[in-house]
């Protein structure tokens, strides 16, 4: 019971909200902590494209816990790419390693799905590396399964 109460308290203290420009240094730091690579220009550009513009179909949400940014998710409703009817795409999701398996990723996922629903779509899609087992497992745990598309690529000579 004590553990359950602590989980409820932790969930109550968690706030999901749209990203602000002031969050980007924390997003950059969190991504660097997880991937070991700093990509400041990439994340600033992502904020410009997904946090600042066309906000009716583009979403950049952050998870704040006790005034600290502990996770984020980015996505967009896109139409007719690859012949697909409008669909929500999740491009990135990240949760601080110490905060994992506590429901934060699920809250972020549900929050962006709510955003997608408001745009009228009924499907959500993502793409990730086959060897990224952690995130692959996370999306599977949210009920995602292989979809009707296959990703193909080649190496240019």
């Amino acid at each position, binding site marked *: 019971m004590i553990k359950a109460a602590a989980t409820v308290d932790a969930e109550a203290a968690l706030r999901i909200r749209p990203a602000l420009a002031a969050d980007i240094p924390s997003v950059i730091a969190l991504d660097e902590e997880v991937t070991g690579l700093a990509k400041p220009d990439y994340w600033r550009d992502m904020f410009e494209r997904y946090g600042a513009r066309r906000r009716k179909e583009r979403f950049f949400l952050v998870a704040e816990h006790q005034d600290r940014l502990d996770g984020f998710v980015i996505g967009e409703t896109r139409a007719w790419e690859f012949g697909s009817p409008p669909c929500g795409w999740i491009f990135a999701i990240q949760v601080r390693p110490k905060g994992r*398996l506590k429901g934060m990723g699920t809250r972020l996922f549900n929050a962006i799905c709510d955003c997608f629903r408001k745009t009228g779509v009924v499907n959500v899609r993502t793409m990730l590396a*086959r*060897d990224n*087992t952690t995130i*692959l*497992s996370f999306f*599977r*745990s949210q*009920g995602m399964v292989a979809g009707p598309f296959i990703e193909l690529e080649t190496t240019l000579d």
Partner: protein
Amino acid sequence: MKLQKATSFALFAVLELAADPTHQLAAAEIADKYGISLHHLAKVLRDLARAGIVESARGVGGGYRFAGNPKRLTLMDVMELFEPIDSNRADGDDPRPSTDVGRALRLVLDEIDGHALATFRSITISTMLKIIDQRPWTAAVGDQKPRKRAARS
């Protein structure tokens, strides 16, 4: 893709026991439910116990109980206890693996294996229990709603 008998039996047992980790089940109960050989299942359960995935309770009313972490334990973790699961398995069954045609076929089969392995590695026991509860295979039928996991009978 076809799983070996021992692998299927192990997955039946793990998922059956993980559905209620507080409950213990006799091997015979699981064997009856799935219509499988008790003798073979008992051996599989001993292997699962050795791997720490289930634990056995001796004596009257003894049986097996799930002992793993359902959010961490994957299908692959269970499967690889019972059969070799990798795309570089021995080529003994591959006809003409040293020819160009054989190598080209190997390339295609490896691509399929790559997807299969990623799938097995990414699906946890917890996710499997959700799928079982949601029964997505009934969606095509139409009006059946997801069932709640019933108390074990």
